[in-house]
């Protein structure tokens, strides 16, 4: 199975490495290697570009090359060893800039070893970049080809393989919560529906949605008001604030993720009641609230069941067609675990303990 779900034809994950180059305003023709991210099928690759302009760079180049292409090699052998039947490329998708485009790359084969290599490169002007966009390496059929597994014919344009997505962000995705939610301080002790001693609570249904922070916790308000040092080492109170930030983000994402998944599930049940033959549920996304859609847009990689889904529509379809057992496991452990891992939960706890100066126990 790949990010696109189960298909009756062979569709494989392949591994790719990413190299990033930048060009300075002063010497725009000179590309300097900035960083590399090596293969990992399961995790998307994240690139932050927001600071590059302030560092004086004017352009960024992405180079992607495959490192392992087993699935495509089977197709190649099953289709008369004609590489022209296949096209490697990268799908660029940007909601903010309203772009959706296939950028072709190149495929080459070593006739001796039959090893196929794919490469792709594209430059972007940093002045025109805004928000987030994704780059998804794929191999597509250029003509009707035979599936080596089932011997079905798959038609041109069919995605035969994909690799982990490159998410190119202006700034850390965590800031999305800061943009979407407002923060309110409350005495949890005085509110009937809030629990004493809890760090925070979430009112996702409010407009705009609210993160409630517990003003009864001694020192919390003071700590949360601390701002990062623009330069130099961050003092303990800033490190404490950051650690608490990540705990709050985890709590918010787990709560809201569960709420959204449950909403999708309910919507799917209603649709099945109306029409038992319904097969496609991707458009449940359209019936979600705009806040739910925003969170899905920013965090679908954390809320999904499989390794990755492409967009909100795919996530809705995946959730709607999952079995009860799968969904239960997902809500109780799979999704919270993914969120905690992504938000660096273990780092947050370790940080808090270090700040409390706990040594040998």
């Amino acid at each position: 199975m790949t990010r696109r779900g189960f298909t009756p034809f062979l569709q494989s994950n392949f591994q790719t490495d990413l190299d990033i180059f930048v060009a300075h305003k002063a010497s725009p023709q000179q590309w300097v290697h900035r960083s590399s991210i090596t293969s990992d099928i399961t995790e998307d690759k994240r690139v932050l570009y927001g600071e590059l302009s302030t560092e004086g760079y004017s352009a960024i180049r992405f180079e992607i090359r495959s490192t392992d292409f087993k699935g495509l090699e089977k197709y190649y052998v099953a289709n008369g060893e004609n590489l022209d039947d296949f096209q490697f490329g990268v799908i660029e998708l940007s909601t903010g800039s309203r772009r959706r485009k296939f950028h072709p790359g190149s495929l080459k084969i070593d006739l001796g070893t039959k090893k196929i290599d794919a490469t792709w490169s594209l430059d972007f002007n940093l002045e025109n970049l805004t928000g987030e966009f994704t780059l998804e390496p794929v191999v597509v059929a250029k003509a009707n080809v035979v599936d080596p597994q089932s011997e079905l014919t798959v038609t041109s344009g069919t995605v035969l393989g994909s690799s982990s997505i490159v998410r190119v962000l202006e700034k850390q995705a965590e800031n999305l919560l800061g943009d979407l939610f407002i923060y309110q301080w409350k005495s949890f002790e005085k509110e009937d529906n809030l629990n004493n001693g809890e760090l925070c609570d979430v009112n996702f249904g409010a407009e705009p949605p609210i993160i409630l922070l517990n003003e009864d916790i001694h020192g919390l308000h003071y700590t949360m008001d601390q701002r990062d040092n623009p330069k130099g080492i961050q003092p303990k109170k800033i490190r404490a604030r950051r650690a608490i930030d990540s705990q709050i983000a985890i709590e918010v994402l787990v709560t809201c993720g569960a709420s959204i998944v449950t909403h999708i599930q309910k919507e799917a049940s209603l649709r099945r009641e109306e029409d038992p033959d319904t097969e496609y549920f991707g458009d449940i996304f359209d019936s979600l609230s705009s806040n739910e859609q925003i969170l899905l847009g920013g965090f679908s990689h954390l809320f999904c069941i499989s390794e990755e889904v492409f967009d909100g529509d795919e996530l809705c379809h995946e959730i709607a067609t999952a079995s009860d057992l799968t969904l239960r496991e997902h809500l109780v452990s799979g999704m919270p675990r993914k969120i905690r891992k992504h938000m660096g939960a273990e780092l947050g706890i370790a940080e808090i303990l270090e700040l409390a100066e706990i040594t040998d126990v």
Partner: protein
Amino acid sequence: MSRIYLLHEPLRSVVDVLHALNAPSKVELVELQSEIKELEIIGDIASLNKKACVQIDSSGLDRSADKDVARGIHEAFQKIREYADWLLSDGQFWDWCGIVAFRDYSLKRWCGGDEWLSDGNLPQPGESQLKRFICNPRNTHSQARHVVQRLYIAADCSFRYDGTYDHLGKFLDVDLDIASQIFERQLGLSPLMAVVMADVAGDIGGSPKTPGSPAVSPRTNRRNFFKQVNFLASTVSLEFLPEDELRRYFDEIAREIS
């Protein structure tokens, strides 16, 4: 000619929208300062706003001015496209467009005018209409519903397809649901896909009643078409395909539905 502004703070809720509409003189703006001289001035949007209101009044139809406003905005924003594409992804710029630059048109088009602002006895616009003034640049649903950006998107799509505005009618005349189904999804991010989908969807009609099934409206059949296209996009890279192959796929889906 008009200068470009952005709202100082993004609109985040219907409450923000109401505050801004009720007290236009208090709306805080930031004037765009640009190193590119041409960028600071754009087309005459004040007269475009006025003409649109006159058109709606004379025709009695809310959406009668949509195509002209769409084309007018796109032409007015040529310099932005050329010199600072990034501005068209800025939510506070679109917030300004809806709340200030095209205030009269937006209120007339979606809220029946502005009298309700000062007269609580008149029917008040619902939350869904007021939410159209809020732009979330990260969300296709919000972009496609925004009072002004929705028109820019349709015009830009037509223009990027073949350099003309000849396709605006496919999005804005046949059935507004077509524009919603296309542009509220990521499928609508590709001009080629959007125009071809609109072409095919526009020709889809209703299905008559048969002994075994009830009649189906054209809109229901079209929505079924878009669902199937979305499903197809999960395994086929539609952005890879040339136009003739795209049409072939979509025509096949439309034939099966009809």
